[in-house]
């Protein structure tokens, strides 16, 4: 009761005094006489500079946090072992092998299996071809009856060494990077862009 009475009195006062109290004869002093402009501006600069430097300091860990994936080397799939080279010395026809690929994707490790062909060229050198057709990515199959690779999807045909013979593929079969380590044949699996004339590494 008393409270509401007080409020009413104040409301009346408020109407009369609102302008005055805002800009202030009774809130005297600094409002009418702000500190000299020079000092205010200087302080403003000091505060601004301080704020910017603290914000800058704080943003260092944030930027490093956000850029973390960029600092990690692109996940180069390691070398997959295909066994001793002697396994392929007698070979005339291409040998199909399956290799397991491990890829790191952020907090995941993704496992997959890929097919490759080990081919002994006329010169006696070994080469490793990916089974993925450079046309649309189907798995190429080796056909022993005519000694050709054939893609089951659109009938692209390749020689035993992977040279394009006929069909829609834009280029030869893609060979993979390989090495011989302690007598073992090893290969680094990669995928390549399809439908283009030259071999381009995708991953």
């Amino acid at each position, binding site marked *: 009761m008393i409270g509401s009475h007080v409020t009413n009195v104040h409301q009346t006062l408020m109407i009369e005094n609102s302008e005055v109290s805002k800009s202030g004869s009774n809130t005297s002093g600094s409002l009418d006489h702000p500190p000299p402009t020079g000092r205010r501006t200087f302080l403003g600069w000091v505060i601004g500079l301080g704020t910017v430097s603290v914000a800058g300091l704080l943003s260092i860990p944030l930027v490093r946090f956000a850029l973390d994936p960029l600092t990690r080397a692109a996940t180069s799939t390691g070398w997959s072992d295909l066994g001793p080279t002697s396994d392929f010395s007698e070979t005339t026809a291409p040998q199909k092998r399956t290799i397991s690929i491990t890829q790191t994707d952020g907090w995941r490790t993704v496992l997959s299996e890929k097919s490759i062909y080990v081919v002994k060229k006329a010169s006696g050198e070994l080469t490793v071809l990916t089974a993925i057709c450079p046309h649309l990515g189907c798995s190429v199959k080796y056909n022993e009856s005519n000694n050709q690779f054939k893609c*089951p999807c659109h009938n692209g045909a390749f020689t035993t060494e992977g040279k394009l013979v006929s069909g829609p593929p834009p280029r030869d079969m893609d060979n993979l990077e390989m090495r011989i380590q302690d007598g073992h044949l090893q290969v680094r699996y990669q995928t390549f862009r399809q439908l283009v004339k030259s071999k381009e590494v995708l991953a």
Partner: protein
Amino acid sequence: MKQNAKQSGFMSWLDKRTGIEGLKHEALNEPIPGGARWAYVFGSGLLYILLSQIVTGVFLAMYYVASADHAHTTIEYITKQVTAGGFIRSLHSYGSSAMVVTLVVHLGQTYFFGSYKGRREILWISGLMLFALVIGMAFTGYLLPWDEKAYFATAVGTNIAGEVPIIGDWLKALMRGGTEMGTLTLSRFFVAHVFLIPAGIFAFVGAHVYLFRKAGSAGPISEDPYEPKQKSEQFYPKQVIMDIVFATILVGALGLLSYLSPVELGPKANPADTQFLPRPEWYYLPIFQWLKYWSGAYAIVGIVVIPGIVAGFLVALPFMDKSLERRPWKRPIASFSFATILCGLIFLGWQSGHEDGADAAVAKQLAKQATETEAFMKTPFKSETMGPAMLIAAPLSPEAAKGKKLFTDNSCDGCHGDNGQGTENGPKLIGVSVKFDHDELVKVLRNPTQKMRDGNMDPVEIPDDDLALLIAFLNTLK
């Protein structure tokens, strides 16, 4: 005038289009009756912490996945792998504690200074709403790492909601997204934590700051809350500097704490663990302890009635107490009740820790949990392995393994995929052995149907023994 003349061309151009000088004036020249004081720094301190929580929260969301399968792994990844990840997560986690502490101090200061008086009812209530929302943020955020303590503390928290009369079970199921805790619970808590509650916080912070500026600063306890009479000082520069100093102390303290003592992550939640003793975050300990005293039929008194009375009292406060008196010692009932509640909460928190220490079995289990957390923090990060189930699972039987070789040698994988998962050129074979028995499989492989032939499926021309091996492999595709 002189100032305007001094303005650079650009500033004057900008001001004409945005009115930025007016905004600056509005923001900086706010009169503070009785002058700047350290007691007033907590509100802007809270704004600073809020800003820090938003920024660190957004960055954490770059790596976090809200699913029971991956949440723990992604937090582990952030903590152990990502550059500065442990630091950012610690800033966010300690920031929540800083928020609660500063909020209680801000509320206490407003209460003891009687600053809610003088046509500030809605301002006060918007502050109480913000208090509730922040408590909600702390509750929902706690579950997100999905480690043991997060899981079990939330299981207890949602059980408490289940004690509410009539709607309790429904409320609990609504929070959990079902009767049990699971991945739906996590999704709900995530949505509440990053979308729903923040929306409320933005709205109420806007209202709170606007209403504060509208009502004006209440000034010191000797001031008339309706019509300030004391000599005033502008917000800028002295109060601004005090606010900045306080914010800098907060930055420094949170940064130092996060750097020297990063927040830990426990092992992944194991719902089957019956030994685990959940303990909430420290600022929830008083409530945790309080609820121990109210069980069975009386639970409703402790969970609903008493907290309801306290909340109702706080909301009603500015409507009941309209006297001009602001000095706490001249308002003994108000001061005494607030101090009692505050001391009671502190005592309950202390009691909770004391009881844990006094009970040997509990102390042993808590020590064991701490050791497990330490051990987990030391184990290197292990990524989640994904791929076709059979690559990860047990190796194939010799027959099936031979069958798999036949599967790739005959380029079945070309169309049906490495592991029969199917490609755009051929259907998946997973489950094919459920659809067809052995003889039917032999038949369609030897003599594909016209539809299969149209899809480029050639008859399988391998010896009968090999065909049996191939089918042995197909039988593993489930």
